[in-house]
């Protein structure tokens, strides 16, 4: 819950930025340096960030990606996925995503034995079989629908010699999560499916008029069955995703 409060705080901070920027127009006297673009004589004719290299409105975005789960206590998930998004507006799109996960034993996981009669005393990394069905977080599949809102479009000057066009977006939606949970028999695991929600932020760096490099940080929240059954646990899983996006059609008009 603390993480959620912090997320709200961060969103609040960013949301307040345009308010700060807008209020400066009301100031009398000198125009501040950062406000000159906003109130200058060319403002009506020139968009805030000129040379808009990339338009998304009316285009599909096909995104193959690879992602990695972070902050894992028991299972680290390596994931391959694909997403298809339709950008109905320049700043808003809706899409579907599908991700297949390969869980492995996380580095932080350990199993310890303090009973000399039960084997060597000490701690070691557990095997996949030891964790299967006993430890939470063994996600196999994620699929879902989500909305994407990209209010920020900008460009960076790199060493004052080249320019990087990018946009930053927020996303949120519902997800179906398939995972290996505890079996009712108490032996091994059984596959369960549950509904969750995910939210995240991402950044696209435009390589040309149809191809982008995409990085995303995503937080998936879902409820999972845990031992002893029928107990459940609300789990939070963070993913870092890296991929490409191909925009279809590959050409677009400026307006």
């Amino acid at each position, binding site marked *: 819950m603390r993480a959620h409060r912090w997320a709200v705080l961060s969103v609040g901070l960013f949301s307040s930025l*345009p308010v*700060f920027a807008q209020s400066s127009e009301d100031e009398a006297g000198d125009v501040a340096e950062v406000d000159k673009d906003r109130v200058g004589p060319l403002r009506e004719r020139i968009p805030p960030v000129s040379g808009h290299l990339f338009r998304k409105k009316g285009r599909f975005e096909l995104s193959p990606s690879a992602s990695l789960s972070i902050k894992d*206590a*028991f299972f680290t998930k390596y994931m391959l996925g694909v997403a298809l998004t339709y950008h109905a507006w320049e700043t808003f799109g809706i899409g579907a995503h599908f991700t297949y996960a390969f869980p492995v034993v996380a580095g932080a996981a350990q*199993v310890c034995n303090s009973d000399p009669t039960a084997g060597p005393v000490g701690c070691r990394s*557990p095997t996949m079989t030891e964790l299967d069905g006993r430890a939470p977080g063994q996600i196999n599949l994620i699929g879902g629908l989500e909305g994407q809102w990209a209010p920020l*479009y900008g*460009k*960076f*000057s790199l060493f004052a010699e080249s320019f990087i066009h990018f946009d930053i977006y927020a996303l949120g939606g519902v997800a179906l999560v398939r995972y290996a949970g505890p079996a009712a028999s108490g032996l091994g695991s059984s596959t369960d499916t549950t509904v969750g929600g995910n939210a995240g932020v991402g950044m696209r760096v435009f390589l040309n008029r149809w191809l982008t490099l995409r990085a995303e940080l995503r937080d998936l929240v879902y409820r999972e069955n845990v031992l002893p059954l029928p107990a459940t646990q609300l789990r939070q899983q963070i993913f870092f995703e890296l991929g490409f996006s191909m925009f279809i059609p590959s050409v677009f008009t400026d307006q």
Partner: protein
Amino acid sequence: MTRISAAALVLLLFGGRALAQKEGLGLDLTDDAKKDEQKKDEQKKDEPQEAAKPEPSKASAVADKQPPAPPPTLGEREIIQEDRVKSVQRKVYLKKHRFELAPSVSTSINDPYYSKYAVNIRGGFYLADTLAVAARFSWLGAFGTGYVYPNDDVRTAKRDFQSRIFYSVPQWMTMGDLEWSPLYGKVAIFNSILHIDAYLLGGAGVVQTETSAQRGLNPAVDLGIGMRFVAKDYLAVNVALINTTYVDQPAGTTKGATQNLMMLGAGISVFLPFRSTGREAE
């Protein structure tokens, strides 16, 4: 230690370039040759037209009889001259020789068992527009009663796997950093403009943990990235991801272990003096 060396080398290599940057020049996409050509054209325009007009001669008389030449096409030089709007225009806010005071909050994102939250205060001074020295103090006991907060997986690990989780409990840290911001740009948001820069930081300092009373402060190194969204001459919002590495001997064990405390933070930056020095260059 190799990471510190690499970071120091990178900062040295690019720091010179940062220091060499002239205040207020910003960006100009037209190269020098084209600027010279432009100056010559302007000089020609200033000369009296009479001087430029040649004496009538036989050659000109012949030329008069020839059909008129087609109108000149717009060459690259003319296009550049017409293009008064550069892709990323000159920097309108400058940070050189200004102070930055930045309070922020942050949370750990890499510890699977124990979450940490911190309140930070950072002060920086910009030696050049892209290079700053900064000091940061972080207090991890501001939220709740403790310094770390266990999640449900701690219970599962101890109950089902008899795990013995030895964890470091950082209480506060103070770090000195060099910040280098090679990326400068602007973004459009809600039909407003924000100027942004992105920076890398690296430095060293000390971390106080719960076992520091017996062992003393733990030396630490910082490595991180961040972005600043400038709303006004004196105000920015910044986000940063900083990894602090230190060696600690947690309670309950005699073994020391390298700890990586990766914190994602957000806060505001206030620049002093309030006015950007960019206006003086105009």
